[in-house]
């Protein structure tokens, strides 16, 4: 027996030793994080179904933005700047736009970028058959015509002064002619980095495009490493296995308090949550009830409870986010008495009982309703929370039940207002029909003068606060975390970050 024990011990010890050696080798490998290599952590957003086709619903972000360019990008202040376009202009009605292209730009395979590629790309984006998600943004374009090799004319269904901002959507990327069949796995773009190995479930490798038209990237290589959940991604940053996490869970930020080793950036974003009320179902058809439901809550307390202190920027039911030039900054304090009065006027003297559906299909959705319920009870609003199964939420609950939570990503003013609030919008979640609002939206987007247009968008947002069926308490602030070796990542939304300017010292 002793002999067998010894044998077992030997095996055990050998095993441990082997483990230590192979672990040691691996740790040698990881501490040699070469300068010139940026390791970006990425969420497993679509669980292996990712594609590099920027127009596909399962496009893998932010990798697409390293490989491809837009015609027009956004600057730090969210004004449009030239990327593949050199200049742009429109007619007086804002429904015909001429775009002059940058000359001498080459795709990664050496072929030239020209007007044919632009026409091809835009036609794919607006193709009703393919029905790309980007069609919700650029569906306003009806035709794209080649004028010359480096000039394209876009015709719109209606005047749109902010077309350049819509073209700055992170998915409105330019792809080469006839690339649809191959682009998903073998993307050829004009961008600062070329695809080397596309492995969305593991590690995707990109190499610098030395001929990039904005100048050679400072990095040699980017590795995009996929993590199953945000906690393991945070562990990887703490253990020097990645250099940059574009968004971390606010609760993880304590792990990165050491300023010598880590940089944290808090970036206000345009992502928002809301509680939507169907106007075609009682009692939400009554504008007084809707307003009472919206003014009865303290938005700051809700934002602090749901997102953590500093985790959000309060919104007065406007979907236009804090850094958007069209943002209306109204005042919307908690008004319990006002809410009670409005309810009494609408016939609910003894308060009102409502049901709100929620689900853990996304973060913050359950917390939002819980915080809201606490906030509005003083005004006699008694909320029953209904939990729906995550797998059926978007199909069976969203836009169907009488009241439900909602979540949207960042969009420019003209897009979000037309996509969510316009009476005829496909995804108008409350079913609210407001012809006057539609008219105001038409007028605003067709106003050429910037200042006059801003005034019109402010009036629209004021109207939403009076009349809307969407309680929208906050926009989220993202926390970005990186190793202090990473330089050149400006504290602005990722759409405006220039990947070629990032370096690792």
């Amino acid at each position: 027996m002793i002999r067998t024990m010894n044998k077992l011990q030997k095996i055990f010890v050998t095993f441990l030793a082997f483990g230590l050696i192979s672990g040691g080798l691996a740790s040698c490998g990881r501490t040699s994080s070469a300068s010139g290599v940026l390791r970006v952590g990425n969420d497993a957003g679509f669980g292996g179904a990712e594609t590099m086709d920027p127009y596909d619903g399962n496009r893998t972000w932010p990798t697409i933005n390293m490989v491809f360019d837009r015609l027009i990008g956004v600057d730090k202040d969210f004004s449009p700047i030239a990327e593949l376009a050199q200049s742009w202009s429109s007619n007086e009605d804002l429904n015909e736009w001429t775009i002059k292209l940058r000359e001498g730009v080459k795709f990664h395979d050496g072929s030239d970028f020209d007007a044919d590629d632009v026409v091809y790309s835009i036609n794919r984006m607006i193709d009703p058959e393919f029905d790309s998600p980007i069609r919700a943004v650029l569906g306003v374009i009806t035709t794209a015509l080649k004028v010359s090799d480096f000039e394209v004319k876009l015709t719109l269904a209606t005047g749109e002064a902010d077309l350049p901002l819509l073209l700055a959507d992170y998915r409105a990327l330019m792809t080469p002619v006839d690339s649809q069949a191959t682009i998903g796995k073998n993307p050829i773009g004009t961008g600062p980095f070329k695809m080397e190995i596309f492995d969305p479930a593991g590690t995707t490798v990109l190499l610098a495009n030395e001929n990039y038209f904005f100048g050679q990237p400072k990095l040699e290589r980017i590795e995009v490493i996929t993590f199953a959940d945000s906690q393991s991604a945070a562990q990887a940053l703490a253990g020097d296995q990645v250099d940059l996490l574009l968004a971390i869970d606010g609760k993880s930020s304590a792990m990165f308090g050491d300023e010598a080793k880590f940089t944290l950036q808090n970036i206000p974003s345009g992502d928002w949550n809301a509680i939507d009320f169907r106007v075609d179902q009682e009692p939400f058809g009554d504008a007084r009830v809707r307003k009472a439901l919206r003014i009865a809550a303290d938005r700051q307390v809700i934002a602090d409870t749901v997102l953590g202190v500093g985790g959000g920027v309060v919104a007065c039911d406007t979907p236009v986010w804090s850094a958007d030039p069209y943002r209306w900054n109204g005042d919307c304090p908690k008004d319990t008495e006002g809410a009670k009065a409005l309810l009494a006027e609408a016939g609910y003297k003894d308060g009102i009982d409502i049901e709100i559906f929620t689900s853990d299909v996304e973060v913050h959705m359950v917390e939002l309703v819980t915080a809201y319920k606490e906030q509005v009870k003083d005004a006699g609003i008694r909320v029953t929370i209904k939990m729906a199964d995550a797998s059926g939420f978007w199909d069976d609950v969203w836009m169907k039940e009488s009241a439900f939570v909602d979540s949207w990503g960042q969009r420019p003013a003209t897009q979000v207002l037309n996509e969510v609030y316009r009476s005829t919008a496909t995804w108008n979640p409350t079913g609210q029909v407001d012809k006057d609002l539609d008219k105001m939206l038409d007028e605003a987007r067709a106003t050429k003068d910037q200042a006059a247009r801003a005034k019109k968008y402010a009036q629209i947002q004021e109207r939403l606060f009076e009349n809307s069926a969407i309680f929208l308490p906050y926009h989220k602030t993202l926390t970005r975390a990186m190793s202090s070796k990473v330089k050149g990542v400006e504290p602005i939304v990722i759409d405006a970050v220039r990947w070629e300017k990032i370096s690792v010292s």
Partner: protein
Amino acid sequence: MINLARRVTFSLATFIALAVVSFLGIDALPGDGCTALLGRFGSDTKIESCRQENQLNDPVVVRLKNWSTDLISGDLGYSIKRDEQVSEIIIPRLRNTAVMAAVAAVIAFPSAIVVGLLLGRFPQKRSSKVVNQLSVIAMTLPEFVIATVLWLVLSIWLPIFPGVSVMPSNASVLQLLPNVWLPAFTLAVVIFAHSMRTMRASVTNVQTMPFVESAQLRGTKERTTISRHIVPAALPPVMNVVALDGAWLLTGTFVTEAVFNFQGLGRLAIDAISDRDTALILPIILFGLAVYLISSLLADSLARIFDPRLRSAKG
């Protein structure tokens, strides 16, 4: 033999019944492969044409029949969401989990048996009591706590092992190896405590039995008493636990794999559930089922080999 044949038949029947229940259960959940693929903004017409294309509109009985005939012919199905054959997705992940499980098993089981024997034989030693208490703690701690502590100690404070696994999805076993240790240690802690305590209890029980006493009275050497009399009699209950723990190593690694970002079957299952890839969830459930049924069959057969009393007259 008849007994064994009966048990195999029973296991097979259990498998078939549970497979059908799982199929129907998952089918009853809201959402399917097409809603999973097209997501929140999938238009009704697109979802409908996707369902047509993938025959999801057929009656449930027809789909169950097609699915089971495919399964019998070795076709695990097709993931609409991932646009890939299920077997091609599962097999590399299964290999990764198997490597990790094997490492954990080799570390934990032999040492658990040895330590359990020593603790059972010398219960009065102070070190025995300490190890015993530690094993209770190890058993009650959730895996994510063990995992996080191991990560903190062996990756951050003493940077020996990589903290989370970062590797291409088609990594070779050699590339996989450095990433295996921390998750394998985590699993090893759990199953070590479990099987060690079973061994200890079993040894404590066996050594008071008359045949041990009679061996000692005959003047048999301590070493022989242990190897001839105590160990063979103490092992059968431990084999049961080893078999069940072994099954757990292959199927219960969700938490550990998630903490260490390990690309195994557990993480795949979490991904599949979170993006509602029903085509992928079902084979993973069936795999778990098969592993448990086979391992409990195996445990029974092993117990028979070790313990002559369990052999019936019929064999």
